[in-house]
């Protein structure tokens, strides 16, 4: 599915909605327009992931990269409304504590994720 980014500027920063696949083509395109996020230095970026239908290793690596980058830009990057494909990858790779965002699991998805590890911050 064609990736799509929708941006809404708010008081605190901006809310971004991603739809489609987070894979290499999407990331490449995003990087060419990354200045859209650059302007938000010191602000909060809420990244809504409910429209993500697929995320692969490059996609999760990209999210990790964004999280780290937001730290160096003094931005707060919060991932919200994780779709099931995103949740599954976070669960498998033990990355819940890495992102540190609140996770909501829909009732119908409860059996598909376990979060048995990687949920606790380890110094």
């Amino acid at each position, binding site marked *: 599915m064609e990736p799509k980014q929708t941006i809404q500027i708010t008081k605190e920063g901006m809310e971004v909605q991603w739809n489609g696949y987070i894979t*290499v083509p999407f*990331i*490449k395109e995003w*990087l060419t327009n990354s200045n859209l996020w650059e302007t938000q230095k010191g602000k909060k970026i809420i990244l809504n992931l409910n429209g993500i239908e697929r995320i*692969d*290793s*490059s996609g*999760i*690596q*990209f999210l*990790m*990269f964004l999280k*780290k*980058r937001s730290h*160096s830009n003094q931005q707060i990057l919060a991932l919200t409304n994780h779709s099931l494909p995103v949740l599954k*990858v976070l669960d*498998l*790779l*033990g*990355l819940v504590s*890495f992102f540190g965002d609140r996770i909501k699991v829909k009732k119908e998805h409860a059996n598909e994720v376990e979060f*048995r*590890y*990687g949920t606790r911050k*380890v110094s």
Partner: protein
Amino acid sequence: MDLSEVIDAYLVESDELLREMEAILLRTESSLPNDEDLNAIFRAVHTIKGTAGMFGYESTVSFTHVVENLLDELRSHVIPFKPILTELLLKAKDHLSFLVSEETKGKITNEKISFGQSILDEMKPFLQSSVSSPKTTSKETINQTDQHKHSNSSDLQNEVTTNLEGNKLAATTSYLISFRPNQNVFAQGLDPISFIGYLKKIGTILSLKTIDQFLPDPNEFDPENCYLGFEIHFSSKENLETVQNVFNFIEADCFLHIYPPGFTVEDLVDLSNQLPEEEIYLGNVWKEIQILDDHQFLIYLEEIKSRKTGIPSTSALVSQGNNKEESESKLSHHNADPIKDSHKSSTIKVDSKRIDNLINRVGELVVSCANMNQLIGESDDSNLQESSLIVMRLLNEVREISLKLRMVPIGESFQKYSRIVRDLGKELKKDIRLITEGDETELDRNIVEKLSDPLTHLVRNACDHGLELPEERKKNGKDYQGTVKLTAYHEAGNVIIEVADDGNGISKEKVWKKGVEKGIVSGEMPDSDEEVYKLLFHPGFSTASQITNVSGRGVGLDVVYKNIESLRGSISIKSIPNQGSRFILRLPLTLAIIEGFLVAVGKSHFIIPMEMVLECLHFSDDHKTDSNQFFALRGNLIPFLRLRDYYPCDVDSDQPRENIVIVRNGDKKAGIVVEKLLGEYQTVIKPMGSVFRHVKGVSGSSILGDGNVALIIDVPSLFERTITVENQKFYSHRG
């Protein structure tokens, strides 16, 4: 290294762990422990068992084995936590405490073993898994537990034994998979996640850590490159080949290393040399994914160090020798490893004798330097004088730091009273709450240790005779729950510790009547509370109508008094009917630095604790009254004494002028007449020798910069002594 030092370390560590265990159990008694609490208790028991096993303390190992099983099932939620288990675990803690200390001394009696067995029998109904016989050897027991610990998944029952000497890892049924896809895997159309996901079809991923160390800076990030790595703790019944086959399609485009069950710490060290990340980072990752436990992590670090330095590691030495003694001595070397210490905790344990030694040497250094400073001061060399001032400043800093080494917060020792109060409450059928305040107040370690018995006695007294039964309290309009309060604070160069209860209070009439009956006192009851309550410290004195097996108000208070006195402290009592009693212990800091006020009488020097000094005045005729005991200060009469009347001083006849130091003596003011006021002086209190133990009015001594000795005045006891002397004079005069 001397083996006894290693055993001491084991005792200290076990004591700390058991105290922590007890504190958690007491804290969570009404609310039930959470996962973190259960994990902490499990770790405590597990650590003790591990160390005891290495020393060959089989009674301890056998006992902890079952306790550990129970805790493991609790923390894994195999069985639910029930309130009765708190009681049982506290019993187990007490027995373990006994085992740890006694087994290091020699053999445990059969009676004690069967007592331990009775505790274990009580535990068995709660255990879901069958408990293996505790009479296994220590080595076997460790293997069983380690195996149990790491086989949380119920579908994994492969039996592979490990042994500690070989440093084989506890993860008996699990694989370690180190997976580092090449940077170009995305270009090859490969998705590492899909391979990892496939692992779930042939087993269980127990834990996984995504390595993100090589994610580049923003301007270097290329989405077509893979920068991630994975360390996977995986368990499966399948053989190594099947696990390897999962990665068939990506094998050529990654670094892949799979260790089958039974790998050792040495294997991990080998692996760490092949992986791009730093060894310590990898060790932490393996600890995080539970490939290494705390102990193995330390061995891992040590092994890395030994490979770098070429000095054989303890673990290597242990594995080479089967000789138990040899193993123990190697362990001691391991204990002394700074790497271990730096990772284990930010604090280190030091033998208190070494600290004493250091402080003594620093004290001598201070005196020598003061002499040197004086000599340099007499010379004209300004550079030398400047250098000497810098040395003195640094030395004073070192002195302050070294003195602080001995100070410990009293809170640690307050902690144990929670248990005493809890148990007494149950025994006496009273609902008692312990409140502690001023836990952070620091006191010399020696005093803290010696305070243990007197405080225990006072706390037991407060619970038993201080507090009423709940029904009685209700009748008196009080809260059903009684309170015992332990408070510590600094006051005027002393540490004050108060043991208070909100019970009935002490009946003065009853105490005096008893004193008269016993022939200790006679006549009408005096107005002074102090004089009446003093009777309580008389040997064999008790007002308790019923002496219980817990305590009797008065029974043993003489011992408390003696103990406090031997610490050069004092004890006083305050009590209000139906509101409670307060036992106030006033203790010197003994070995500490205090801000003092240096005075002189003739050639003798004295130091008055600065916190007690209110003001200094020239003792002029205007102040003097007809009385030789009081002087007038701004319209108030204040009692005073002359130091030269109480201490043999070479009085300076050329010193016509007298000065008076106004001090705070409890709530009142008093004056000490001296000749010279020499100003503020920071001083080290040196405890008085045993010969001078009974000398009143002096709390210690200090060596001045010029090598002279100055006595530190203990103001309250000096005035107490004065009152006694005056009373004696008064009565002898009447007689």
